[in-house]
């Protein structure tokens, strides 16, 4: 039995799933969860389709910190300010006091990337990466009509669909020539774009937002292509950057994320990293399925059974009801080509290389083939 506690920094899906899986294997070791926010549990994927389901912000909180602490037999510290990690002494500094750990799990998450914008409205551009952010966004959108979204990626498209379904007028701006740029071949992207446009989304592609000015109660966006858009609120959804600063300050090896091996072990003894902050064999995968896989492996490792993480094929479901979509992109740089079969109500795109299916993008009615095709895909990390 470990005498020193397992300390988890972060109360998102990664942190709490590690805790829950660990408790299945080890009900004794003291467990401390340090949260930068309220420490309650909620589903982040639900944030981008809550409006369409008529869910209030409060109803998205599934359990508060006290309930989580009771369920997990853990100490959950809300609004904990973790200022430093000392890998030599095996301590973290929390609200100015040192806590010793036996094993430390960094489940720090990621920060939204912010585009450089000019204008006096730039600082009012919102990002949504947690429940409190979402509460601010809903408050800003309440009773309003026009929302501009910077970014036509997965989160941008999901929010756009959710907002038009709830009656908003939505403009989406992206430098890429198509929505979900990195995940779809052009023919599939065109289909998705048409479906979202039919639902009311207005795309402004191949251009960027340069200025956001306040204009009475609203905002005026100036695009590089000369267009001027008016919006009541502006949402930025241009991607995430792993949170690495604290690990870097502690001398841990950093690349794009906090570098870990297959055991999710960082370069420091007894310190692990998981979720959006971690980079495993060069991969940063900020999606639900990789987190669930990694959390199960890490829980076993923490419980004394070193277990390398394995990733099967992990298709990502894009929650755009106007155009159901599931994608499993091929490895970046994998040799092969997209073969696209387009029907009236769906598009099936397979990425084939060396005679096998290496990835897919299924839209509309084609999503029905998800399971059959997933079974053919190679493991992401076998």
């Amino acid at each position, binding site marked *: 039995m470990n005498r020193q506690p397992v300390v988890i920094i972060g109360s998102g899906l990664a942190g709490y799933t590690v805790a829950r899986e660990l408790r299945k294997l080890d009900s004794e070791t003291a467990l401390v969860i340090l949260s930068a926010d309220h420490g309650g549990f909620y*589903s982040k*994927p639900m944030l981008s*389709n809550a409006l369409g389901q008529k869910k209030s912000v409060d109803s998205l909180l*599934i359990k508060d910190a006290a309930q989580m602490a009771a369920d997990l037999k853990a100490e959950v510290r809300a609004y904990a300010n973790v200022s430093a990690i000392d890998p030599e002494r095996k301590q973290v500094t929390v609200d100015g006091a040192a806590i010793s750990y036996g094993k430390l799990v960094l489940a720090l998450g990621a920060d939204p990337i912010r585009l450089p914008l000019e204008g006096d409205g730039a600082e009012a551009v919102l990002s949504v990466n947690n429940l409190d952010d979402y509460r601010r966004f809903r408050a800003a959108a309440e009773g309003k009509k026009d929302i501009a979204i910077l970014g036509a990626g997965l989160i941008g498209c999901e929010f756009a669909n959710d907002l038009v379904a709830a009656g908003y007028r939505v403009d989406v701006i992206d430098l890429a020539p198509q929505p979900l740029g990195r995940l779809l071949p052009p023919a599939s992207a065109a289909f998705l774009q048409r479906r979202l446009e039919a639902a009311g989304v207005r795309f402004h592609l191949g251009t960027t937002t340069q200025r956001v000015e306040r204009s009475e109660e609203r905002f005026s966006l100036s695009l590089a292509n000369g267009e001027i858009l008016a919006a009541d609120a502006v949402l930025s959804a241009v991607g995430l950057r792993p949170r690495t600063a604290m690990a870097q300050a502690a001398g841990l090896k950093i690349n794009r994320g906090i570098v870990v091996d297959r055991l999710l072990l960082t370069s420091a003894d007894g310190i692990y990293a998981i979720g959006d902050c971690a980079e495993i064999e060069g991969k940063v995968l900020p999606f639900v*399925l990789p987190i669930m896989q990694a959390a199960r492996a890490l829980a076993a490792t923490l419980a004394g059974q070193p277990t390398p993480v394995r990733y099967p094929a992990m298709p990502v*479901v894009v929650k755009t009801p106007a155009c159901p979509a599931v994608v499993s992109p091929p490895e970046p740089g994998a040799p092969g080509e997209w073969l696209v079969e387009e029907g009236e109500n769906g598009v099936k795109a397979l990425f084939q290389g060396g005679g096998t299916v290496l990835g897919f993008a299924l839209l509309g009615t084609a999503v029905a083939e998800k399971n059959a095709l997933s079974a053919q895909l190679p493991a992401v990390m076998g």
Partner: protein
Amino acid sequence: MKTWQCVVCGYVYDEAQGDVEHGIAAGTRWADVPDSWSCPDCGVAKSDFEMVEV
């Protein structure tokens, strides 16, 4: 017939639809879905699922 939602990923289980692809017939009540079933989108086991009624 009720509708339930996975608290991890947001997957919706509609009792009227079931999950036919995974052997759960249309009309299967959540209580009757076997414990061996897992969420088709995020892989969470039914016992971890804490489906919430929508």
